[in-house]
């Protein structure tokens, strides 16, 4: 039982607990907090896998921006407890079993697909951020620019959507 494995299981447990509590919590803020836990744990996992930059970005963007936005909106709309209506019979009956089945399928598929990718020799080395940057700004430069454009559009859309009626 080596240290990384222990760390992995701890973080994995955090993830799963967080996700479950995201489902079980009735108040959106609590759900949001659970999700933040999941994300931080994931960042830990990335670190464990030596993806430092991704881990940092995960926390900065997801934890520090996106989830803050969620919390902000929840506070802004003063969302109360979620009322457990059951209008949708389909979701009530078939939803959870189907989702479980999907999970099983996915787990099987993904795990099996790991055999098809011949696992390269594991150098425990951490991914140099420079290499990542080179990849991002050379091979993936067009997608990169596209995403920047996407972000711009999204900002405009958000402004248009959320601006009070008078200012639109």
């Amino acid at each position, binding site marked *: 039982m*080596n240290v990384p*494995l222990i760390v992995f299981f701890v973080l*994995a447990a955090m*993830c*799963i607990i967080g*996700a479950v509590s*995201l*489902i079980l919590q009735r108040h*959106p803020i609590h*759900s*949001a907090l659970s*999700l933040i836990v999941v*994300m931080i744990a*994931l960042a830990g*996992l990335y670190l464990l*896998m030596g*993806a430092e930059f*991704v881990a940092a*970005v*995960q926390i900065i*963007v*997801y934890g520090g*921006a*996106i989830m803050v936005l*969620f919390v902000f*909106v*929840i506070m*802004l*709309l003063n*969302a109360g407890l*979620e*009322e457990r*209506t059951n*209008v949708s019979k389909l979701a009530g009956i078939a939803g959870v079993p189907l*989702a479980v089945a*999907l*999970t099983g399928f*996915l787990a099987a598929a*993904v*795990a099996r697909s790991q055999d098809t*990718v011949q*696992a*390269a020799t*594991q*150098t*425990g080395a951490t991914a140099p951020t420079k290499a*990542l940057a080179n*990849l*991002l700004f050379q*091979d*993936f430069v067009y997608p990169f620019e596209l*995403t920047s454009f*996407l*972000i711009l559009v*999204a900002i405009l*859309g*958000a*402004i248009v*959507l*959320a601006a009070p009626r008078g200012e639109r």
Partner: protein
Amino acid sequence: MVPTHYYLILSAILFGLGVIAFVFKRNIITIFMSIELMLNAVNLAFVAFSQALNKLDGQVFVLFVIVVAAAEAAVGLGIIIMIVRNRQTLNVESVNLLKL
């Protein structure tokens, strides 16, 4: 060293939980969060593969996914605000005008 398929199975489980939340929750914001959860699960798989293959592409994809998620959050929350403004509710089941 942690075997790669541990990560993969974890990501699958997280994704499944995200799906369950997606189906199970009624609060629009929470449903939205569950989508984010699914995205995260996918990211985990990406990073796991990138580690398994010693290729950084996976991590680049993760970055893109994060960017897209940010954009999605911006627009989606704007939409949610609109919905609440117009219908004074966050419960998806009471936002069901889209039917015959």
